[in-house]
């Protein structure tokens, strides 16, 4: 600690404004400083124990039976066979709970602990098993006999609102499938509307984002039957909320359910209320009498963790001619999902978000919370305000433009000042939005870049506001207690009932205690989460942490200080006592704090405790009908700005600079505040540019990180946080909340910046390349004509595609009976590792499959795509690892050469190095081999995510991509019954280099051109007894110049489209032996043969290529409904490739 104390300084990037406010913290030793997390040694060395790291004797493993249907009646459910299996200790269903048991949420209670006669979304929990091993638990799940009667249910808002749709719940509202109608009228909306002489409006969609915390939801439960107490270790943000609901649902006294402290690996809202796993584990622990552990796997986490509610917003803003916003009007449809998990309060909070910023004269909002047969929405950082900030701040830009104001000036004009009370009744003692906007302007170099930015570059800004803990959910939500234990050994312990999910809350509390008691921070321990040992706190949600826990611990620590001084006075008489570094001093005397504690007659067993309660009387519970009331003690503000480059050829958006300026009152820890700001902004950028859960027929298609475009390190700029520091009279030391707000501005910032760059407004999130290219094509009135009527070869496919939405898909689908969506692989028998090819080849066959790096074998097995029980490892075969140049100058690359080795441009060919470095991650490339890359299984997200499709189960099953989301990873040329593509980037490159593959079996070898190797998407001519031995590239080819370009959604993603271009270029710039090979666009690597022919021997420029190439695309392509944009992107990539090749020649 001591070295790091010396490094304490102000924030790295931050401007501190209004230093006169900061006297409270200037004199503090720890508060305001970048104090590292107090448990950093444990967290960075793998010592911290998360829930999954806990082992108990006789620990059982829990698996869950989940619904494969979006909506079905459960005709029968019989767990007898499962229960009878050896090694199974308990099975539970809804029958184990009292009839009608439901979870409680603010104003709603419709969610049962396990499906109650009906399943309402894919992934819903039906039954759970506790068994000795995961394998036995999985087998027991398979042994549960269940019959469903599926019903056609609405899966989208529009479907739900149709008159004849199935009614999902019995609701009080008159409109079918509307869980709640909201009507908010604040101020004088009618007059305000009339006063708004200039209006802008638009329709905006915010899709489903998932938290994707690195630690999945997990719980360990232990039932002590002697005590009658249930002990829980839960990865949660809110132990008390978990305790109360677990106790209620299991019929236990609240005090008989005890949550214990455990490290929590991120929450972002997903762990701020009870889900299902906590009660399931508790019930199984009680029923089995054994400790049980339930840890979601990643696909369960995606499929069952309650994600962000989608908002569909029609909004209008009106201003007067001077530029004052007068009126906000909105009609908002919110997708609730299958239950009221937290939908009612999320919509309420989202609407309030529009009543906290600026000062219109009137606000009129109408919202519907609409039921669908999809995973329920849940709590997510921003909690509804994120979804409404996006339209509000986009329209603020549109309004500024219409009034001919600068977007920052316009917001400054409408920003409020200290002491502002909003239409909603929010008492905002400090408002530094104006300063945030000014700081953002300066930091992003707004004025300079506005006048001299290059084409396709744009600037965007957005503002935001959030709370410091909403007085919501419960009547005691304005209260927070804390305790300080003083020990005779001089140490101090803070006891606090919340949970630190990584926000640094424990450290902040230690800073406060250390400063109030004038102790070195190393002398302070912090205990959290333990519902038996810690006093009352509702947990880390609604940005409560700083305000409530900060105040509570400050009060407790101050009381402890007073207590120490009182002991000193009683023992040593009146004097001027001071606390200093663990000592109490007076006159020339000194005593250690520990010794003083010893002198107190209140000290028991070496411990002296002070416990205090903080109740914030400045807040009120908002009126449930109007939403009015000052629900938060303070309000925090932000302005974010970005500078972006939009590639109009490919639709890619690159963020060149991003600044996030926040007013969070006083800074309590300058490092963790930066962490919250940057982390929030990164998550908001993810929502803006990539993240979206994709459902098809109610089932999630992208249930893993690999298909979920959350930002990786190379996708983000170094986001720059700034703090406009000041002091709010209602916060601890003047501090306000900060944890959530960072996520709100980015979507509008980026939509605004993209508009600034290219003049098109994208108002549905995420802003992926397809939306940009489609918008540009529409703006320029460009349309491709594929002349399908002249192409008889495509008629049959066109007919099938036409028939799909008209009944064919439904018929094909009805022919399949769904099984459980979870797949448990057959056990592996053995892995042979023959030392030579001669040993290996005879072993190969249908059930004995070769593996190279083996990077896909574990995923494929868990996806039910690999049933071989014997694996033949080729990794140890030296012959396959060689790179040689033959006598005739050809290059031969062994198939077991890894992708990492290929990244070396000197080892084989620069093109292969360029390609290899774009594939996956370094860790994957270290394992993956060239041969494995070439033969990898297709990556279609329907196929991979367990959809029972044509390629998985046979000819009578449908292809889900035809009607599903096929914008990125499906073919736009030559698609047949399966729309998948060959995922190998190496294949694209090798075809461009006219490579040959040497295929070897025990009976001989054959040589196949790379261009003839593929027969379909990720399907090859390779026989079961064959492997790819080497890849051969002719000497003449090696002299060609070659480049590779790839469009992907995140660093390391598979190609959305790609192109490998190779040519010889003579002294006069003429191209010959030209190959253009495209990946991601057709079932197999696709050669632009006509373009190659037309350009051979010519001077090639981006323009000449584009013309010819577009003609060829139009003549060959047969895109699906929503992936024609890939042709534009591909043509754009080709242009880029031509320019790059010309430069390199």
């Amino acid at each position: 600690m001591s070295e790091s104390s010396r490094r304490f300084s102000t924030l790295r990037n931050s401007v501190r404004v209004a230093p006169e406010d900061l006297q409270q913290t200037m004199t503090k030793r720890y508060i305001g400083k970048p104090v590292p997390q107090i448990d950093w040694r444990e967290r960075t060395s793998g010592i911290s124990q998360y829930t999954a790291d806990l082992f108990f004797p006789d620990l059982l493993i829990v698996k869950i039976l989940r619904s494969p249907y979006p909506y079905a009646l459960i005709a029968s459910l019989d767990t007898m066979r499962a229960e009878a299996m050896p090694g199974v200790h308990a099975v539970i269903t809804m029958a184990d709970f009292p009839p009608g048991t439901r979870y409680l949420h603010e104003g709603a209670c419709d969610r049962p602990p396990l499906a109650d006669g009906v399943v309402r979304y894919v992934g819903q929990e039906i039954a759970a098993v506790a068994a000795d091993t995961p394998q036995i638990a999985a087998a027991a799940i398979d042994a549960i006999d269940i019959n469903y009667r599926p019903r056609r249910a609405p899966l989208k808002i529009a479907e739900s609102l149709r008159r004849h749709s199935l009614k999902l719940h019995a609701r009080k509202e008159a409109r079918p499938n509307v869980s709640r109608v909201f009507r908010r009228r604040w101020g004088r909306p009618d007059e305000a509307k009339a006063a708004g002489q200039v209006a802008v409006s638009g329709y905006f969609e915010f899709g489903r984002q998932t938290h994707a915390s690195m630690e999945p939801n997990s719980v360990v439960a232990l039932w002590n039957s002697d005590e009658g107490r249930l002990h829980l270790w839960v990865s949660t943000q809110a132990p008390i909320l978990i305790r109360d609901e677990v106790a209620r649902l299991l019929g236990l006294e609240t005090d008989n359910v005890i949550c214990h402290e455990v490290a929590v690996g991120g929450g972002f809202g997903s762990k701020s209320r009870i889900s299902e796993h906590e009660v399931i584990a508790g019930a199984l622990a009680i029923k089995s009498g054994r400790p049980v552990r339930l840890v979601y796997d990643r696909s369960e986490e995606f499929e069952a963790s309650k994600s962000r509610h989608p908002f569909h917003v029609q909004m209008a803003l009106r201003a007067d001619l001077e530029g004052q916003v007068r009126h906000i009007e909105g009609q908002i449809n919110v997708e609730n999902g299958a239950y009221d998990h937290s939908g009612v309060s999320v919509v309420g909070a989202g609407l309030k978000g529009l009543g906290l910023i600026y000062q219109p004269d009137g606000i009129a909002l109408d919202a519907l919370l609409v039921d669908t047969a999809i995973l329920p929405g849940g709590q997510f950082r921003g909690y509804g305000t994120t979804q409404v900030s996006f339209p509000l701040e986009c329209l603020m830009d549109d309004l500024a433009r219409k009034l001919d104001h600068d977007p920052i000036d316009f917001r400054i004009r409408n920003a409020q000042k200290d002491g502002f009370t909003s239409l909603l009744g929010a008492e905002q003692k400090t408002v530094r939005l104006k300063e945030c906007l000014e700081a953002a302007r300066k930091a992003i170099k707004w004025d300079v870049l506005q006048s001299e930015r290059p084409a396709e570059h744009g600037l965007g800004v957005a503002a935001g506001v959030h709370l410091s803990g909403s007085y919501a959910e419960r009547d005691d939500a304005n209260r927070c207690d804390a305790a300080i234990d003083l020990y005779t050994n001089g140490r101090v312990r803070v006891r606090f009932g919340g949970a630190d999910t990584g926000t640094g809350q424990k450290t902040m509390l230690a800073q406060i205690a250390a400063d109030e008691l004038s102790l070195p921070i190393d002398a302070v321990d912090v205990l959290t989460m333990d519902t038996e040992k810690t006093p009352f706190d509702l947990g880390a949600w609604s940005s409560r942490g700083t305000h409530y826990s900060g105040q509570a611990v400050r009060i407790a620590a101050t009381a402890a200080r007073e207590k120490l001084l009182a002991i000193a006075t009683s023992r040593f008489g009146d004097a001027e006592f001071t606390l200093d570094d663990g000592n109490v001093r007076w006159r020339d005397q000194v005593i250690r704090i520990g010794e003083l504690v010893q002198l107190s007659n209140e000290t028991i067993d070496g411990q002296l405790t002070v416990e205090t309660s903080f109740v914030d009387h400045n807040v009120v519970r908002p009126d449930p009908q109007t939403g009015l009331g000052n629900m938060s003690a303070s309000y925090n503000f932000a302005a974010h700005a970005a500078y972006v480059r939009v590639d109009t050829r490919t639709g890619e958006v690159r963020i060149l600079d991003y600044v996030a300026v926040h007013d969070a009152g006083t800074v309590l820890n300058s490092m963790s505040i930066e962490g919250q700001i940057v982390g929030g902004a990164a998550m908001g950028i993810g929502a803006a540019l990539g993240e979206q859960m994709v459902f098809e027929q109610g089932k999630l298609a992208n249930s893993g990180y690999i298909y979920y475009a959350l930002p990786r390190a190379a996708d983000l700029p170094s986001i720059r946080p700034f703090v406009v520091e000041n002091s709010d009279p209602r916060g601890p030391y003047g501090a306000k909340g900060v944890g959530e707000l960072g996520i709100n501005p980015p979507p509008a910032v980026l939509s605004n910046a993209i508009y600034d760059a290219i003049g098109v407004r994208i108002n549905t999130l995420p802003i992926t390349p397809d939306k940009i290219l489609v918008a540009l094509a529409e703006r320029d009135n460009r349309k491709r004509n594929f002349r399908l009527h002249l192409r008889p070869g495509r008629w049959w496919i066109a007919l099938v595609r036409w028939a799909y939405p008209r009944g064919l898909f439904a018929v094909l689908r009805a022919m399949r009976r769904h099984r459980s969506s979870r797949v448990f692989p057959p056990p592996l028998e053995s892995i042979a590792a023959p030392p030579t090819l001669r040993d290996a080849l005879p072993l190969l066959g249908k059930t004995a499959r070769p593996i190279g790096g083996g990077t896909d074998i574990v995923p494929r097995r868990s996806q039910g795509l690999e049933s071989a029980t014997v694996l033949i490892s080729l990794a140890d075969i030296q012959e396959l690892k060689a790179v040689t140049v033959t006598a005739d100058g050809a290059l031969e690359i062994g198939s077991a050469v890894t992708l990492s080795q290929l990244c070396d441009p000197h080892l084989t060919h620069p093109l292969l190095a360029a390609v290899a470095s774009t594939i996956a991650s370094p860790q994957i490339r270290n394992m993956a081999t060239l041969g494995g890359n070439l033969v990898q299984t297709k990556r279609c997200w329907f196929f991979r995510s367990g959809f029972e499709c044509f390629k998985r189960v046979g000819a009578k099953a449908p292809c889900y991509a035809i009607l599903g989301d096929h914008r990125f990873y499906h073919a736009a040329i030559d698609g047949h019954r399966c729309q998948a593509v060959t995922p190998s980037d190496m294949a694209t490159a090798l075809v461009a280099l006219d490579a040959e593959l040497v295929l070897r079996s025990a009976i001989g070898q054959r040589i196949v051109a790379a261009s003839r190797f593929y027969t379909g998407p990720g399907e090859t001519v390779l026989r079961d007894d064959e492997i790819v031995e080497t890849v051969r590239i002719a000497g003449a080819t090696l002299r060609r110049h070659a480049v590779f370009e790839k469009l992907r959604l995140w660093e390391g993603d598979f190609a959305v489209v790609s192109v490998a271009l190779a040519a010889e270029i003579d002294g006069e710039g003429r191209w010959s032996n030209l190959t253009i090979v495209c990946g991601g666009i057709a079932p197999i690597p696709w050669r632009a043969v006509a373009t190659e022919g037309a350009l051979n021997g010519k001077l090639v420029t981006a323009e000449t290529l584009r013309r010819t190439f577009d003609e060829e695309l139009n003549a060959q392509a047969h895109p699906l409904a929503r992936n024609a944009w890939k042709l534009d992107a591909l043509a754009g990539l080709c242009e880029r490739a031509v320019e790059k090749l010309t430069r390199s020649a």
Partner: protein
Amino acid sequence: MRTLDHTLVVNHTPHTIKIDPGWSLLHVLRNQLRLTGTKEACGSGECGACTVLVGDVPQLSCITLCARVRVPVSTIEGLSEESADLRRAFAERGGFQCGYCTSGQIVHAVAILRAGLPASRSAAESVLRRLLSGNICRCTGYVGIIEAILDVAEQRTRSA
């Protein structure tokens, strides 16, 4: 199902254990050897949280079949001394929040620093951002991680 006797050297300590051929290295580290510092976050090679060194090479232990591992393995537990400066830099730069991805980040960073980064900080940053793109962090927005590693790279160069 056949059980194999397998010798696995982890952090310089050899272990002879009975394993199933289908078990991942991660499963064995966590459940057989109780080395729980290596985390499982995706189980399918997509996030980097389970990164360990196999020999000197960073690999994903969740998709590495244990039976195929014949060279010594190093985990966060074995590397925490070598990474003492790196761990402190993570702490001081805000390179972790929840800590769940941190073992994987640090193990990977150990290998990256052994291999070396470009001398110029901006060049090093862009190389590093690409190299670390297989290690997802949902908390920090990566700034603290990148700065911590760059700081240590510079410190080590200076003191070398």
